[in-house]
């Protein structure tokens, strides 16, 4: 069958001619891209070029926007996720997302993490406790919050809240983590912590991160994709893309000529 022919080797996300439009306005046009398992891929490009839109189509968050139309193909683990019979809840378990602004629930730290696993069928308190602890540990937050799990998540600092959101996504045991400018609202120290965290998570997850910060992209990613006006201009090993870009537009962007 088709899925067996599929190169299971390393590609986990494969888009083909993916276009996304809001009403009449095309935000992403005909992007084909492959992303390998357990790598960090950074999306860069001036704002409004469609990075978030592309990212949000990978877990079908664009479904929430009535005017949004997605065409083309997205395969994740060999499965076409734009099919109408795809289980979206299952997809979103597999593909976690962290947003630009930390958005913890108006709940306790514990509940923030336990909510989704409980919804997806884990009822035993001991099991939930374990998931909460492991997720917080992986997000490098456990030591800071272990004594106040029952307190409101809103009392945490901005950086802690963002790491909590990462922990919350990890608790679902996804294969893929989508991060949309996760550090853009954070101070430098919190940013550094989030970056360290991403580097550690790479071993277990495939990470796709949108970032405005070129240094950040260069520091943490294996591959970088440069977007411009809804198109994918260039994608390559990060070290190559930043030192010897193939396209003139990429060079202009990374040398600060525009954007």
């Amino acid at each position, binding site marked *: 069958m088709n899925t067996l022919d599929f190169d299971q080797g390393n590609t986990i996300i494969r888009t083909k001619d993916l276009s996304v439009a809001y009403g009449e306005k095309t935000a992403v046009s005909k992007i084909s891209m492959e992303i390998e398992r357990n790598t960090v891929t950074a999306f860069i490009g001036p704002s409004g070029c469609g990075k978030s839109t592309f990212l949000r189509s990978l877990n079908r*968050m664009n479904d929430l926007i009535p005017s949004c139309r997605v065409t083309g193909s997205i395969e994740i683990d060999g499965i076409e996720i734009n099919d109408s019979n795809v289980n*979206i*809840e299952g997809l*979103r378990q597999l593909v*976690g997302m962290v947003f630009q*602004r930390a*958005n913890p*629930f108006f709940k306790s730290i514990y509940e923030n993490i336990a909510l989704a696993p409980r*919804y997806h069928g884990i009822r035993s308190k001991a099991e939930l406790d374990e998931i909460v602890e492991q997720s917080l540990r992986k997000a490098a937050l456990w030591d800071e919050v272990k004594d106040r799990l029952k307190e*409101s998540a809103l009392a945490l600092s901005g950086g802690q809240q963002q790491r909590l959101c990462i922990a919350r996504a990890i608790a679902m045991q996804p294969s893929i983590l989508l991060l949309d400018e996760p550090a853009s609202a954070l101070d430098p120290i919190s940013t550094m912590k989030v970056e360290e965290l991403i580097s550690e998570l790479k071993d277990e997850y495939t990470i796709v991160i949108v970032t405005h910060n070129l240094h950040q992209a260069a520091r943490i990613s294996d591959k970088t994709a440069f977007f411009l006006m809804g198109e994918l201009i260039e994608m390559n090993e990060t070290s190559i893309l930043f030192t010897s870009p193939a396209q003139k537009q990429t060079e202009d962007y990374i040398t600060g000529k525009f954007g």
Partner: protein
Amino acid sequence: MRAKTIDRIATYVLTGIAVLIIAVLVGLLGFILTNGWHKLTFDFITSPPDLLKAGGGVGPQLFNSLYLLVLTMLISLPLGLGAGIYMAEYAPNNRITQSIRLCIEVLSSLPSIVVGLFGLLVFVTMTGWGYSLMSGALALTVFNLPLLVRISEDAIRNVPKSQKEASFALGISKWRTVVTVLLPAALPGIVTGAILASGRVFGEAAALLFTAGMSSPDLIFHDFNLDSPTSPLNPFRPAETLAVHIWKVNTEGLTPDARDVADGAAAILVLAVLLFNLGARWFGTWLFKKMTSVTR
């Protein structure tokens, strides 16, 4: 310089208005309470009214007010909340939704006496219940529903969109998102709405004259048989409330102490509303904390 002067004048004027409002409120409360204070005895609060002699109380009326409040809220809160959820999260943005919204607006501006007459026609006559608590509760539901729908819709809409996104991104269904994420976050607004609505139930007379009726059987408080006409819990018995009683005593009271009774009943009504408000607020805060761990 000019801007500063205007600013200062505006500050004075606004402060003046605020002080005036508070003064009126305090004056009113003080007046009602001082007039009725001497009536606040155990006897007055618990004994039934006397039609001819002095010395009657308002026991059944106080109980009726509270029981009617509970009944009304039991009916109107789920309806209002359900409709609010529908309007905020499920209603498509089309003509039908717009006309529903228009209906709610119109309903909320109906004079309560009209609601009362409608209740007389539908809940008293057509149902064949006669004057009853249930008829009153349904009339008050008609009266309160627009407020409850609007307030719960607003409260749910005002929860930041990012909360919903976070929940959907975790693969949680829409309904569970509404119940476990949006509703708890919207709770303070909903509680405020419920308190407002309750205040209206306590104070309403016009809508109840012809629905819950202007008389109350002498309740036997240890009679728990729901069918018995003297059982306090029977929802199909007539039930004059405190507010209706005040109106009745003032207009057609025959006892020599009618004026006194009205004053006392007014004081009790005000105190009950006050206590209920404080209690409901405390409960709301407690519930919000329980559900969200957020202290406010």
